[in-house]
């Protein structure tokens, strides 16, 4: 029902384009900082831990590069960043809509004859689905770079070895898989959070509860979808 009413548009196409651009800037640019931090450290930690676990002299050091690449591109970048994204964007979507609900701003839109679901929710979902994959691509590069920094600065691995490692046996499908995951996660996070916020009842306390439950439910949905997609596509 909720998702269905998303697509009954009444306002002009131009209005929507403008709203989507605004939301995209909010969602995309607003999340860059946290994504940069998290992904760089994620790559660095992966590199250091892999090195620590590789004690066998039979295994070449460049494997560290390969492992950092495979782990971050396929799993860590889309999934861990999704959890971060749920915490940042999901909670802001649900608390924003929740506040609009309890202060009657959504009612005000409805009285003006505006389809408040499509007006408020659709741009947020589209913006999330557009921007999140870009953030994930950024996270992939940065986590590989983070691994490189950690590896070379601590002399675990040389620059040449790392670069050789990340280029070894590269399977382009992993990128495609990660992008499919990103789109699914972004859709789940934004629609779950919007749903929770939109149907908030009560006062400021309930807005807080809605936003907590938006984040929790998004995280569960992300992990479930992650598992299902791995089963289906790998």
């Amino acid at each position: 029902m909720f998702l269905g009413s998303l697509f009954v548009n009444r306002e002009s196409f131009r209005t929507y384009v403008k709203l989507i651009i605004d939301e995209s800037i909010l969602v995309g640019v607003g999340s860059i900082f946290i994504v940069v931090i998290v992904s760089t450290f994620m790559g660095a930690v992966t590199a250091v831990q892999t090195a620590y676990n590789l004690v066998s002299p039979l295994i070449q050091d460049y494997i560290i590069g390969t492992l950092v690449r495979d782990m971050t591109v396929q799993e860590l970048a889309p999934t861990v960043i999704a959890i971060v994204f749920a915490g940042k964007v999901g909670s802001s979507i649900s608390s924003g809509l929740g506040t609009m609900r309890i202060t009657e701003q959504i009612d005000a839109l409805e009285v003006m004859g505006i389809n408040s679901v499509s007006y408020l929710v659709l741009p947020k979902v589209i913006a999330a689905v557009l921007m999140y994959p870009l953030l994930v691509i950024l996270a992939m590069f940065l986590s590989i770079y983070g691994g490189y920094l950690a590896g070379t600065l601590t002399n675990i691995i040389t620059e040449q070895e790392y670069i050789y490692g990340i280029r070894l046996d590269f399977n382009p499908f992993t990128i495609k898989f990660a992008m499919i995951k990103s789109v699914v996660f972004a859709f789940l996070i934004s629609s779950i959070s919007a749903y929770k916020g939109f149907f908030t009842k009560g006062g400021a306390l309930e807005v807080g509860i809605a936003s907590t439950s938006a984040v929790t439910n998004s995280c569960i949905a992300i992990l479930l979808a992650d598992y299902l997609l791995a089963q289906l596509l790998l």
Partner: protein
Amino acid sequence: MIEIEHIKKSFDGKEVLHDISGRFEAGRTNLIIGASGTGKTVLLKCIVGLIAPDEGNVFYDGRDFTHADRDLKTEIRREIGMLFQGGALFDSKNVQENIMFPLNILTDMTVDEKLDRVNFCLQRVGLENVNQKMPSEISGGMKKRVGIARAIVNNSQYLFCDEPNSGLDPQTAILIDNLIQEITKEYGITTIVVTHDMNSVMEIGEYVMFMHQGYKVWEGSSENISQAEAKELQDFIFANKLMRMMKSS
């Protein structure tokens, strides 16, 4: 003209509105009055369709709103201007954008025309130089007035005001009351004002519906309200000293 017939509404088994009927004529100020918690806001929301009544019908100039399909509902709603009890300003938009919003959505005026209209409405509610302020930066009474400006900006056919002058000083309150009455007369629109302020009742109460605990107890005009028999209405009217003094004199 808006007609309501046998509106009933309960929340969780508790009846909030008991079979309310009435006629709100165009071109005069219709008031719904009553003590706090008697269901005035719920009735108003039933009329504009934000709350679906359990039973009963609402007609906008003969158009059945309760059973209207999506398109007719939207059509009617685009003729409605509403002030909410809490103002309900969009807090991500500044004052000017808030008032301009219905124009952006519902009309194809040019930016200059819209700006003129916004400034005209702001001036009518007695506000100046607040265009760029955010709702969080203005006082409660100013929010109310911006809400009124937003409700009247699109020359709506139907105007609903939920407590337009609560939280305003007596002078501004009268200014707002008179503004609402003026607009109603000038454009011949159908206006419903919810209030519990006796000053407003005496000032602009051409038609008054008195509600008590979800029942319509009395209806009439402010001229004969003080002769009303109903005990609840007597208590409501003569709660304040000034009104009691007027009665005994």
